[in-house]
């Protein structure tokens, strides 16, 4: 009896010890095809090479749980994938760990990481991994004719039917202004003014009754495929995957796209900070970023990765024309102004909510 | 049927499930002012009959008439029948006064008339001081009186009572039995009273209908019912009774000779037996058994009996005998001067008058 107890105890102690030393980090991302691309391009090779398991969790917006977790002193996420303005804001509020940029590997040709990353991709607390964009897409089977401009999205006379839009002021207001004829370069200047914001809401008013609001990135392809909406704003990679990988009749309109970074951040007090830093360094090297682009049509944040981007994982689709950064797609494109949104996010979203409820 | 018929059941049948009949071919006629009790074990159909009369159940077949008018399709609230329920069914959210005023209110009677009628009804049951109480603040007996007053306050000609005294203790029950009969007679109301308590039935009623198996077994005034039961069910159900099983040997001159199963012969009065050879169950009341056979007429048959037990009960003695294989044969004797007290184990002779011993169906 005693021997048995002793044996059992040994077994449990050993098991507990092995759990404690087993290395695992938790990475929070946006779900769907995007998380899948990260799992394939980053998580799996990282675990294979470093022996550190990656636990992937999803959220509609990974920035939202961070404050609550940090303030409650109960941080479960080691690495989160957040938008630019959120990364800056959270960093300013002291909710993120600072990242020593010297851990990032140089490009294969020796270019330092600082020079290799696209301008703005490296921040005090954040390292960008992709360039993505908010575009609008349409279901080719539910529209007569071909929408080509951002103006068409707001033209329900020409293209009747419901529109899907993200339930957020960000990107929505910019698109409204561009659709109203404001050139991309003047959008943020105009939005600094009360008149500019009024103008954006006035434009949104013209289609307000036809809007179905979405919150999770996986929703727009679904809404489009179901025929719930005929056009919807979306993250460009989600549409690409629905169209190319799943064969849905969806088409992206690049006119008026809004480019943004997604960045890795480490919440303050993350349980496995060292491993998290290793993960960020690993996943943002030239090859990994290029690999990710073979799973979803988001542009790598390193210049040196561009040359390595080839075919989609179906082995035949050329990725380059589907990237938000492709020259043809940049004709009328807007780069998200994170400073503007850091400052005005609360205010404009409040106004946006008030407008929604009117 | 007759001119005096006030309540009539005419070939009424009732089935709940379409497979079995709960009430089988019920025929009953009540004159105005009668106090009739439906007595029977549970499941005998008596309550169903009452509910059909009240209008809460519909007859599957047959006619029910009230004062000559068919009421099968008249809803309960138009029948004008007062009813007292087993649990009193006093409305818990209303005061006693409001409870009593309710039937008057729904009849559109004006307030002052209402008040005077309610007061009169309460006085009638000696509850005048309780008008502002809620039912929950009253004792069981008081609730019973209020329920009675409520059933009478709108002056119905027919009142139905569904085991109204079941929840009361014995003393209160006896008092209420008396009050109910007094009120019914004083007010000249026709009353149908349902109970499974035979004492209640016997003491209160003008006539008693004994129910069993969906049929009226016997409809008769209490004394006839007790003394002249027409079948063995009634004989068993009403009062205490001794039975012996046997076969008819001969019937002549209103006397049947019955051969008991152990071969001995007794005399009995044939009631619902036809011919020699029929199985029969003879029935004799404990107080009609004679233990002093010398007092019987000459030639009367006697039986041997062994005393099993003697119980002293004050006014009477109760002697348990073993007679012709029946170990539970009871004899009641008055505690009169000189009455013998039997000892267990003693063997005696017993006998009875032929007309006190009824040869009934074998059950």
């Amino acid at each position, binding site marked *: 009896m005693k021997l048995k107890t002793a044996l059992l105890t040994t077994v449990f102690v050993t098991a507990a010890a092995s759990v404690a030393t087993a290395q695992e980090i938790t990475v929070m991302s946006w779900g769907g095809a995007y998380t899948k691309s990260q799992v394939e391009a980053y998580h799996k090779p990282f675990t294979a090479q470093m022996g550190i398991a990656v636990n992937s969790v999803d959220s509609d917006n990974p920035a939202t749980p961070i404050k609550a977790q940090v303030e409650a002193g109960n941080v479960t996420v080691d690495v989160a994938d957040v938008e630019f303005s959120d990364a800056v804001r959270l*960093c*300013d509020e002291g909710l993120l760990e600072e990242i020593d940029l010297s851990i990032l590997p140089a490009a294969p040709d020796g270019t330092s990481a600082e020079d290799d990353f696209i301008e703005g991709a490296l921040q005090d607390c954040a390292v960008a991994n992709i360039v993505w964009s908010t575009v609008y897409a349409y279901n080719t089977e539910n529209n007569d004719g071909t929408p080509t401009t951002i103006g068409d999205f707001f033209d329900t006379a020409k293209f009747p039917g*419901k529109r899907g839009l993200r339930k957020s002021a960000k990107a929505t207001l910019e698109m409204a202004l561009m659709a109203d004829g404001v050139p991309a370069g003047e959008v943020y200047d105009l939005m600094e003014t009360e008149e500019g914001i009024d103008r954006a809401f006035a434009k949104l008013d013209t289609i307000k009754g036809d809007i179905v609001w979405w919150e999770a990135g996986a929703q727009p392809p679904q809404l489009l495929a179901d025929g719930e909406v005929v056009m919807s704003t979306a993250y460009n990679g989600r549409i690409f995957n629905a169209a190319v990988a799943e064969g849905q009749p969806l088409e992206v309109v690049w006119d008026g796209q809004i480019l943004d970074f997604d960045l890795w951040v480490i919440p303050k007090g993350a349980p496995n900070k060292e491993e998290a830093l290793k993960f960020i360094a690993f996943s943002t090297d030239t090859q990994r970023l290029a690999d990710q682009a073979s799973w979803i049509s988001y542009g790598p944040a390193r210049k040196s990765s561009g040359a390595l981007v080839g075919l989609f994982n179906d082995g035949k689709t050329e990725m380059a024309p589907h990237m938000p950064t492709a020259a043809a797609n940049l004709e009328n494109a807007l780069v998200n102004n994170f400073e503007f949104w850091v400052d*005005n*996010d609360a205010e404009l979203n409040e106004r946006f909510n008030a407008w929604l409820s009117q | 049927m007759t001119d005096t018929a006030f309540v009539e059941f005419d070939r009424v049948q009732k089935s709940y499930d379409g497979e079995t009949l709960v009430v089988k071919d019920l025929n009953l006629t009540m004159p105005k002012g009668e106090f009739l009790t439906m007595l029977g074990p549970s499941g005998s159909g008596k309550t169903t009959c009452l509910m059909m009369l009240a209008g809460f159940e519909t007859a599957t077949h047959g006619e029910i008439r009230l004062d000559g008018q068919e009421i099968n399709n008249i809803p309960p609230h138009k029948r004008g029948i007062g*009813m007292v329920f087993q649990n009193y069914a006093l409305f818990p959210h209303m005061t006693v006064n409001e409870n009593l005023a309710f039937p008057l209110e729904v009849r559109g009677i004006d307030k002052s008339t209402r008040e005077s009628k309610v007061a009169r009804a309460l006085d009638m049951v000696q509850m005048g001081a309780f008008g502002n109480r809620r039912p929950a603040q009253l004792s069981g007996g008081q609730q019973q009186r209020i329920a009675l007053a409520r059933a009478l306050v709108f002056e119905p000609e027919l009142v139905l009572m569904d085991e109204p005294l079941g929840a009361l203790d014995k003393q209160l029950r006896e008092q209420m039995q008396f009050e109910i009969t007094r009120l019914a007679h004083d007010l000249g109301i026709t009353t149908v009273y349902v109970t499974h308590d035979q004492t209640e039935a016997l003491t209160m009623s003008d006539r008693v209908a004994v129910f069993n198996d969906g049929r009226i077994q016997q409809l008769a005034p209490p004394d006839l019912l007790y003394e002249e039961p027409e079948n063995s069910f009634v004989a068993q159900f009403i009062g205490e009774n001794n039975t012996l099983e046997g076969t008819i040997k001969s019937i002549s001159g209103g006397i049947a000779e019955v051969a008991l199963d152990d071969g001995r012969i007794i005399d009995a009065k044939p009631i619902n037996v036809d011919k020699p050879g029929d199985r029969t169950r003879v029935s004799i009341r404990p107080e009609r058994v004679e233990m002093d056979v010398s007092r019987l007429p000459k030639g009367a048959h006697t039986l041997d009996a062994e005393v099993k037990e003697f119980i002293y009960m004050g006014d009477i003695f109760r002697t348990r005998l073993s007679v012709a294989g029946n170990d539970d044969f009871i004899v009641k004797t008055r505690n009169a001067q000189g009455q013998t007290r039997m000892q267990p184990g003693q063997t005696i002779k017993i006998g009875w008058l032929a007309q006190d011993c009824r040869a009934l169906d074998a059950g």
Partner: protein
Amino acid sequence: MADMTADLSQAGQEKLTTADGKPLKAALASAQARSKRRAFFLVAPLLVFVLMTFVVPIGQMLHQSVYNPDFVYKTDVTTKETTPIMVNLRAWFDENPRSTEPDEAAYAALVADLVVLREVKAAGIAGTRINYERSGSRSLFTKSARKAGKLEAPFKEALLDVEDEWADPTVWAAMRDASSAYTLNFYLAAIDKTRGIDGSVENVDEKRALYVKLFIRTLVLSVLITFLTFVLGYPIAHMLATLPLRYSNLLMILVLLPFWTSLLVRTTSWMVLLQSQGVVNDALVGTGLLADENRIQMMYNQIGTIVAMTHILLPFMVLPLYSVMRPINPSYVRAARSLGATSWTAFRRIYFPQTIPGIGAGALLVFILAVGYYITPALVGGADGQLISNLIAFHMTKSLNWSLAAALAGLLLAGILILYWLYDLLIGIDNLKLG
């Protein structure tokens, strides 16, 4: 014998001692104290649990709704150390009344504080706090703090060179308001009010007015949903209560089935049913009752919220009703009928009044749940089906303005307490019957 009588008479005179001479009252008290203590130990775990999981968090929430120290000190999230910030400016505010024009001393204090903000990395937080009062102020702090170290006297001129917005009196009014950690401004914001430059309360711009409207909508929709669950639930509960147990148990399972299904599953099934390409619309179009282009929009608006919430909250109405109806003896209605009441009168005067405790309990339960409902309106409510709880969630998770979220929640809590009080006044809490 004589001794015994003496003993007895003595006992009769001195009733106040026990056999061993202890005063009776003290003995009784100590005997009861023991059982009281034991009873207390039995409930202690629950008491602690309720205290920790209910009273304390609600207290913290209410505290947060009037307390925001982001402009007073900075707390390091890991070490929990606090550093006072804006010390100089707060001193200047204390010395000078509200009407004072900010002078050079004020600007000097501000610049000195900005330098500290930069050092302790609190510019973002302090700026966000001012941003709550006056939008667009955040960048003012982050930008100016970056440059503050290099500024030289005269500070007014130097700072206005960096950002001329500093001259705006609304910035100074906002900073003055925020310089006290305790403030009612979040409650003002929660009822669409704000403070003007002179500190007076005024309405916010009509385009930003939101919360009062949402409170009203929440109230109206909750009342409507409560009424709908009552109208739908009453007959069901009645049927369940009158059927034989064998059948009613079976039907009860149908009523309870939604309880055992995940809320999300139920909500998304309503989406499948009600969306414009959904089952209901398809059926209507398929049977020719509706033209394809006239599909009814039943989802992503108030209809969706009402339908889905009515369904989800229905059991909370049916169960208390059922528990009240089940013991009502059918003889009450029969008695009323025999006394001359029509079936409608019998229902209205006799049956219905006896079910009021159940209606009260069900209505209170459904209403309180509806007022705080969050997931369903978020999923199916679209824009005009949002309730106040969605905005609370928005401020909790997205805008991270927890003080405003707490103020909104505080108002909601107060509203429910008032309702509870009214209920007690009108019907009486002791008449509440949950089964």
